[in-house]
């Protein structure tokens, strides 16, 4: 348990940003709610830190071997991928005074396999911020990287919620998130300036008046799809956010404003070709929130009740630049000899029709969303409980980008990415659909690879970094460069936000509803109406129960019926989602001096129309202190996705040989077990085994042939590592 606490402390401190997060923004939607709360409370003591420079961090050294087997690998395919590494994350904090702090985090990563390729190793700085609480604690600010949350309809991060997620899983998920500077809170990773003012009590009536201003740059380079090295594009997107709020008599009243825009100047500094189109996206959201908590007025009652509500209006518009033919006339003085008159100067006209950059309005939508929830929570003789019921209605035209971009992206192949497949369809499935969602949720690979001309990708016109000529590969393969190593990762998470046009095109999200089937974009998901309820119970930290029910509908255009009848057929797609989880600390129940936590949960979600998807998740786990320094961790998770109507078709293949496929059924299973040994204070040895199976049933159409097949991969993963926190 100590280990858990320390791990979380470190992770949460690195994640900590001093943003003022009122109402539900600070509330953690993810994983075990009760555990998170106690951790957040501990942050206060951590932050009352000493003046001067402090170095903390985490060092992890170990090896991971993943052995894959599949009938769909081809004969030459590698089946094993090994990682052997030392990874040190240094956190430097400098406090010139007790009010402000400079926070710099650096990562050193050495892969042992390439240790002799290049002995120099660059340090990657991945977090820079200056934070503080100044002016007699009235003003909080963040400059640089920060995490900011406003409300679920304005600035928010939808998180994956897996009830009673066992420690062995949760830890791996946090580690994968951490590699992308992300955490499990609902706050969003941003880079810019955030200032929040808190008045404190005013005139004995108003408890608090808050005002907050946030400005951030959302992307500038390469963030369409961060896949190609040096993949700079000239997109430049900014956020301006502001909120005000007042608290009195337990009630909270607030207004939030978020404005996102693409700047045109940087994009226009670069020429576009005749076939290019550049889209400029604007998204503005204004919301009003209302909250009430009875605790302030009735502090003596063991039960408190209240409500949270938000009403938001959004405006989304896109205009675009493209090259259009335009008639141009230019005048010039010309001299000609005219018979009988002599030399004459006249104004010559020359007409041309060049392509010129043209801008036009492309799309525009306004929408509204309303969300209201009632809660009752309390503590009655060791029984902590929280019951919530909520109503949600969001227009199909509502769009709030910063609230609608989950950090889970998935569709990556994390382990055994070196494998080759026996036919183009299987290869295409792995390229698009990717490896299992459980692999994406829980595993990540981080490498530092020697960079040479051979693996430096540049513009499509260049065959390698040094020459536009196609030359013998041997010429460059051994040519090293001064950057020595580059840090690469394979990771299923991202902090990037989706513009609406990008989100609309992401069919893959339909296929991997790992965040939520009914609310893939969180509470701000467009075109939803319905009710949600949740219950969390904690009996003296011994028994935990969680329950969730969501009943939501989406308008759905039935194109099959539409074609037959000739008139539009709009129906409802009903989502039914429920989940419950149960955990028990047998150690605590039996009054032993150790933790023996047994957990399990079941979740199911389905829809009545569209693809008729159905997902089922079964989770079980054990976290037990066995004896002395030894702890046993185990976890089981099964996740099944069925698409009764077939998935969304994915187009793949080459121009000569195109084909389509869709996945109708995905069955995934992850079994993990391991031993954790406390070597010394803050030092742990961890030995783990995991078995990951993924089976996809799909149908394909290659033109002359159609059929059904399956892709099944099993991965056996062994890992051993030593972690030292300092």
């Amino acid at each position, binding site marked *: 348990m100590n280990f858990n606490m320390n791990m979380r402390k470190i992770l949460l401190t690195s994640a900590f940003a001093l943003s003022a997060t009122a109402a539900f923004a600070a509330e953690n939607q993810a994983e075990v709610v009760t555990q998170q709360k106690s951790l957040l409370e501990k942050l206060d003591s951590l932050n009352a830190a000493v003046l001067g420079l402090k170095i903390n961090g985490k060092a992890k050294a170990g090896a991971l071997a993943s052995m894959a087997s599949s009938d769909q690998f081809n004969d030459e395919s590698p089946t094993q991928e090994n990682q052997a590494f030392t990874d040190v994350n240094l956190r430097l904090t400098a406090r010139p005074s007790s009010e402000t702090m400079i926070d710099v985090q650096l990562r050193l990563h050495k892969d042992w396999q390439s240790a002799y390729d290049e002995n120099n190793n660059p340090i990657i700085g991945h977090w820079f911020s200056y934070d503080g609480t100044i002016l007699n604690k009235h003003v909080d600010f963040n400059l640089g990287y920060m995490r900011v949350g406003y409300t679920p309809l304005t600035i928010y991060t939808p998180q994956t919620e897996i009830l009673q997620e066992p420690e062995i899983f949760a830890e791996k998920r946090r580690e994968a998130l951490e590699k992308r500077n992300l955490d499990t809170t609902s706050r969003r990773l941003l880079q810019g300036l955030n200032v929040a003012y808190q008045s404190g009590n005013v005139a004995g009536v108003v408890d608090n008046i808050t005002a907050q201003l946030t400005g951030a740059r959302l992307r500038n380079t390469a963030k369409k799809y961060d896949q190609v090295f040096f993949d700079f594009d000239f997109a430049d997107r900014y956020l301006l956010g502001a909120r005000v709020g007042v608290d009195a008599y337990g009630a909270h009243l607030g207004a939030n404003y978020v404005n996102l825009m693409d700047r045109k100047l940087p994009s226009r500094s670069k020429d576009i070709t005749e076939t290019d189109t550049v889209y400029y996206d604007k998204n503005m959201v204004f919301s009003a929130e209302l909250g009430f908590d009875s605790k302030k007025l009735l502090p003596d009652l063991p039960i408190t009740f209240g409500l949270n509500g938000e009403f938001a209006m959004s405006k989304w518009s896109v205009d675009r630049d493209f090259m259009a033919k335009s008639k141009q*006339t230019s*005048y010039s*003085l*010309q001299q000609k000899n*005219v018979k009988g008159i002599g030399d*004459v*100067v006249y104004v010559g*006209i020359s007409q*041309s029709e060049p392509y010129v950059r043209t801008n036009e309005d492309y799309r525009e939508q306004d929408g509204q969303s309303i969300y209201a929830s009632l809660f009752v929570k309390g503590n009655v003789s060791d029984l902590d409980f929280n019951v919530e019921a909520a109503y949600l209605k969001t227009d199909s035209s509502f769009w709030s980008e910063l609230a609608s971009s989950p950090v889970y992206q998935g569709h990556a192949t994390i382990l055994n990415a070196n494998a080759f497949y026996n036919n183009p369809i299987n290869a295409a499935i792995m390229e698009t659909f990717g490896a299992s969602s459980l692999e994406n949720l829980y595993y990540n690979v981080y490498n530092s690879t020697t960079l040479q001309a051979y693996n430096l990708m540049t513009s499509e016109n260049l065959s390698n970094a040094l020459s536009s000529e196609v030359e013998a590969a041997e010429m460059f393969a051994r040519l090293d460069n001064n950057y020595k190593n580059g840090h690469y990762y394979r990771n299923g998470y991202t902090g990037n936000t989706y513009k609406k046009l990008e989100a609309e095109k992401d069919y893959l999200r339909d296929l991997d509803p790992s965040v939520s089937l009914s609310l893939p974009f969180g509470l701000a998901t467009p075109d939803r109406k319905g009710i949600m309820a949740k219950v969390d119970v904690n009996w003296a930290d011994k028994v935990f129960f969680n329950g969730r029910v969501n009943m939501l509908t989406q308008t759905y255009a039935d194109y099959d019926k539409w074609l037959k009848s000739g008139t539009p057929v709009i129906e409802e797609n009903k989502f039914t989602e429920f989940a419950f989880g149960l955990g028990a600390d047998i150690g605590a129940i039996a009054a032993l001096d150790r933790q023996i936590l047994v957990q399990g949960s079941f979740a199911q979600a389905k829809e009545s129309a569209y693809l008729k998807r159905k997902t089922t998740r079964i989770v079980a786990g054990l976290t037990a202190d066995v004896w002395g320094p030894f702890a046993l961790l185990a976890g089981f998770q099964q996740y099944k996705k069925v698409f009764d109507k077939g998935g969304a078709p994915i187009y793949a293949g080459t121009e000569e040989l195109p084909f389509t496929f869709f996945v109708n059924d995905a069955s995934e299973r992850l079994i993990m077990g391991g031993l954790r040994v406390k070597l010394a204070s803050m030092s742990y040895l961890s030995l783990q085994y995991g078995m990951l199976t993924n089976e996809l049933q799909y149908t394909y159409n290659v033109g002359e042939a159609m059929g059904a097949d399956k892709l099944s991969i099993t991965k056996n993963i062994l890992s051993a590592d030593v972690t030292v926190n300092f």
Partner: protein
Amino acid sequence: MMILLAGVLGACSSMSVDNSYEDSFPAGFSNREYVELHPFLLTLQIKDYVNDYNARLKKEVGISAYNVQVTQDSATLLGNIAVLQQIYLDPIYVGGTAEGWDAGVQDLVAIQTAKAAVAAGSATSADSATAKKTPALWTEVIPFNFIGVADDFTALKNMPIDSMAFSSQYVMFGRTHGWAYRACRPDEANNTARNDLPIKNAQATPAQKGEFVADMGLYCRDATGVDRLIIQ
């Protein structure tokens, strides 16, 4: 001729001088009248337009496809004597005379006959020499030939005229060179002719090579074609 010009210019969107440049023009300046006095300005613009059109076509379709079109188009135009004649006789295009036309047609027929003889293999040495000549008529009409257009005369009539080029020419060149900008009124019939003014010689034979003396006078043209100073 005046009627014809008026017809061409009538097709233009705006014949009055743009207000914002009003100060640059003498009172009563009109594009139409100016170009009626100096019709070759219009001719030059038309030639440029045709040339421009052909150059863009060349760029668009590529040189080889363009050359094929040139060959086809030449044959079409040479075979269409009626269109050829319209263009030849029109004062704002070639502006040829009836006698010139007759001579030109004779020349054309002679060359075509010689070519036919060469093709038939019955050519005399004189025929061979004639067949290699380019018809004089053709050389004169070619600046008005849109490549790939069958009826060039109609195309020329429908071509947009940019009148701004005329007024700009007056401001930048015509005025300082003493070009008449309007017809003389009856009471101006006896004004001093420009040819009698010292500026005429000052411009024609400058004291130093390259020197230019701007003509500060304004001129009208009388019925006999003499430019006369307007008394301001």
